[in-house]
């Protein structure tokens, strides 16, 4: 009888959904039926489909059980006994067609993906190097140090067309060559894992789910450019990623992949893991270098570029987590295979964190050049709760918001830039009709305002002024001339700022002005918020005809603004009301008596 494997994903998001308890219950149940030897229990990293966490997968069949709770575990384990059937009620149900789908690979969310960077996430145990080796890990490194010259590695990466997946989109091979050509005795390679973009979690998932791939990529980069020291900079908010990286690094050391004279070659390379301290701007490469040397994370003027003079004034190559994870794949399978995916200008695949008001939240990897519609509707399953799509924001807080008319836009570095947005690090936040675009622009500015380093004037003062204007508009005190002023300020900030963050900060404002001008006008001219989000512009009341006096709203109101006796219509005291919407959320779908205007 072939041995079976049960996979219980253990990423941060899976754990938050209770996967550790499911794992413990599985261990117990397997022991109860004496199946421990026949069935192997594994804890891989995140499979990406966070919406249906915790997930249990049974291999080799690939059966997937969704949203498993502890009490479901006995049924799953019993189904492994001869002649028993799997618990059908735990299979995934496609929300669109209502169809029950037992096999993982047939679920639309997985089927539509091309997994290359996330190749091992959700299938191998990230804390066991043997799993990675079995999946062909470190073969690329072995081949490189034993058969290839550094320049050959660089040429292979150049041929693949790989571009920096951290957002910049700079040709990776070219960057490597520049670093290779910089004369110095000491060179560094830094892996940028300071993923601070709200709405992005692909770097975290990758570090948690396949730390060895990132490490191998870093080693290959070090070999190619002639560096002997590498740093992995991870943000402090990702404790699990740091823990797994440490484990991976220790195992790699023991196997001789890191350290002196790697695999018997002349290549020696040390790796250190550096924990960030909570600063968004440190994702910018010069700020990251400042932070690595123990200073405030303030970006500085380039050139000289880090590949010429970076850490300690020495040539330093900085690559994103995803970029490095793609490297071993390219060296192993060849540049041609990688370049077969994607578009003319953007090769390979892109990883997106799909979140917001979409049915299937999670991580998706697709070939460059698919359309936004395919990602959001085919993989993401469309908009949750039957609402209408309004906008999608790509590329983090400094990316632009694109409207429904642009859903056919393809995702690659150049097309997104033309549309006024960016690829960024791959965040994709979907917004529906209940999202106010003016409020959204204000939100992104308030985020950036907190995270700016504050050294250059256009960014520091310009962003503050734009924020004040948006505050005014959402409070119903906007003037028509504000729109022109916002545009002017935005242009000034994006042209005059020192670093990449400053130059992209105005993107959300500029794109919402361009694509959702009617919403701004409604706020200013009619003093109305069409999405009913801006509190100063909405009032709540109760329809006396519909209210049954169930008192549910009275109970949930945090400030006691609702009064009334049971079974009689209630009223809202507008002087006390905070416009928090709790009453509306409780009543809608029941009596629909609470009205928001």
């Amino acid at each position: 009888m072939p041995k079976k494997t049960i996979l219980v994903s253990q990423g941060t998001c899976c754990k938050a959904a209770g996967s550790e308890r499911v794992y413990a219950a599985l261990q117990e149940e397997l022991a109860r039926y004496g199946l421990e030897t026949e069935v192997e229990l594994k804890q891989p990293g995140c499979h990406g489909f966070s919406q249906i966490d915790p997930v249990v997968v049974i291999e080799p069949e690939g059966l997937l059980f969704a949203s498993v709770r502890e009490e479901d575990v006995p049924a799953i384990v019993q189904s492994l006994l001869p002649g028993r059937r799997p618990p059908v009620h735990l299979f995934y149900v496609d929300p669109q067609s209502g169809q029950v789908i037992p096999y993982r690979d047939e679920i639309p969310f997985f089927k539509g993906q091309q997994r290359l960077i996330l190749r091992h996430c959700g299938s191998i145990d990230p804390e066991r190097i043997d799993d990675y080796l079995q999946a062909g890990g470190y073969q690329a490194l072995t081949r490189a140090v034993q058969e290839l010259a550094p320049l050959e590695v660089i040429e292979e990466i150049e041929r693949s067309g790989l571009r920096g997946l951290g957002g910049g989109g700079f040709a990776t091979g070219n960057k490597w060559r520049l670093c290779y050509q910089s004369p110095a005795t000491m060179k560094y390679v830094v892996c940028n894992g300071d993923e601070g973009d709200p709405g992005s979690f692909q770097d975290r998932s990758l570090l948690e789910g396949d730390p060895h791939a990132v490490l191998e990529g870093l080693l290959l980069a070090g070999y190619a450019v002639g560096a002997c020291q590498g740093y992995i900079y991870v943000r402090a908010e990702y404790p699990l990623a740091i823990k797994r990286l440490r484990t991976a690094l220790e195992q790699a050391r023991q196997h001789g992949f890191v350290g002196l004279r790697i695999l018997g070659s002349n290549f020696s390379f040390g790796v250190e893991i550096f924990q960030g301290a909570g600063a968004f701007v440190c994702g910018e490469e010069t700020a990251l270098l400042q932070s690595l040397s123990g200073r405030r994370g303030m970006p500085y003027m380039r050139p000289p570029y880090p590949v010429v003079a970076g850490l300690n004034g020495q040539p330093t190559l900085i690559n994103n987590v995803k970029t490095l994870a793609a490297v071993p794949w390219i060296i192993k399978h060849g540049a041609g295979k990688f370049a077969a995916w994607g578009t003319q200008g953007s090769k390979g695949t892109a990883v997106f964190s799909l979140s917001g008001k979409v049915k299937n939240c999670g991580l998706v990897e697709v070939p460059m050049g698919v359309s936004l519609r395919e990602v959001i509707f085919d993989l993401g399953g469309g908009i949750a709760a039957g609402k209408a799509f309004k906008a999608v924001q790509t590329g983090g807080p400094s990316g632009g918001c694109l409207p429904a008319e642009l859903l056919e836009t393809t995702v690659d570095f150049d097309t997104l830039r033309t549309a006024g947005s960016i690829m960024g690090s791959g965040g994709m936040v979907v917004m529906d009709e209940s999202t106010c675009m003016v409020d959204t622009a204000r939100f992104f500015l308030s985020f950036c305002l907190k995270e700016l380093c504050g050294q250059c004037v256009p960014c520091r003062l310009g962003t503050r002024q734009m924020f004040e204007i948006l505050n005014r508009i959402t409070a119903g005190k906007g003037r028509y001339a504000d729109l022109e002023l916002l545009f002017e300020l935005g242009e000034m900030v994006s042209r005059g700022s020192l670093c990449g963050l400053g130059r992209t900060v105005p993107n959300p404002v500029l794109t919402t002005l361009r694509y959702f001008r009617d919403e701004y006008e409604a706020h200013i001219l009619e003093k109305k918020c069409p999405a009913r989000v801006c509190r100063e512009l909405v009032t709540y009341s109760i329809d006396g005809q519909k209210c049954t006096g169930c008192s549910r709203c009275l109970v949930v109101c945090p400030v006691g603004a609702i009064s009334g006796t049971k079974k009689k219509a209630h009223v809202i005291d507008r002087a006390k009301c905070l416009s928090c919407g709790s009453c509306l959320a409780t009543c809608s779908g029941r009596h629909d008596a609470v009205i928001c205007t």
Partner: protein
Amino acid sequence: MAETETAIQSKVNAVFSSFKGTENELLPLLQRVQEELGYLPQEAMLEVARFIHVPESRVYSAVSFYSQFRLKPAGRRHITVCRGTACHVRGAEKIQETLERELGIKEGETTADLEFSLEAVACVGCCALAPCIVINGEKVLGRLTPQKVQRAVQKVKKEEGRQDAQKDHPCEPGDVL
């Protein structure tokens, strides 16, 4: 919970033993000291400056720049509210307001009894579970509503300290707040 100067000094010096004392160790040093003390009192920062031979202003400039560092002690239950984009569009603002109202403190503050402290952060990377909060940097609670948060805080306040291990729903925050 202010510790005496000598107690701080001895704890800080214990941390130093695993460092070389070079300038670029500043951030890891501060992280380890904060891990030990829960925050960074002035005495500790002065010690760090002396240890790596940099002006005190250099240490303070780093401490005040990075959001991870605290100049005041955190509460026994340190609650981090995620204010990332995904959480924002799913109502993180209301989650934070509810917490502020229920705990009687504002973001960035600690309750007088040092039981709770509240902090808003950019993104904890659990966007699929939005809106979410993190307790003591480890436990992530997701798919929250203001009602769930309100109930959880009231429950914890009532049965202070008691841990109820047998809660069934994975996202029910009642037992871990």
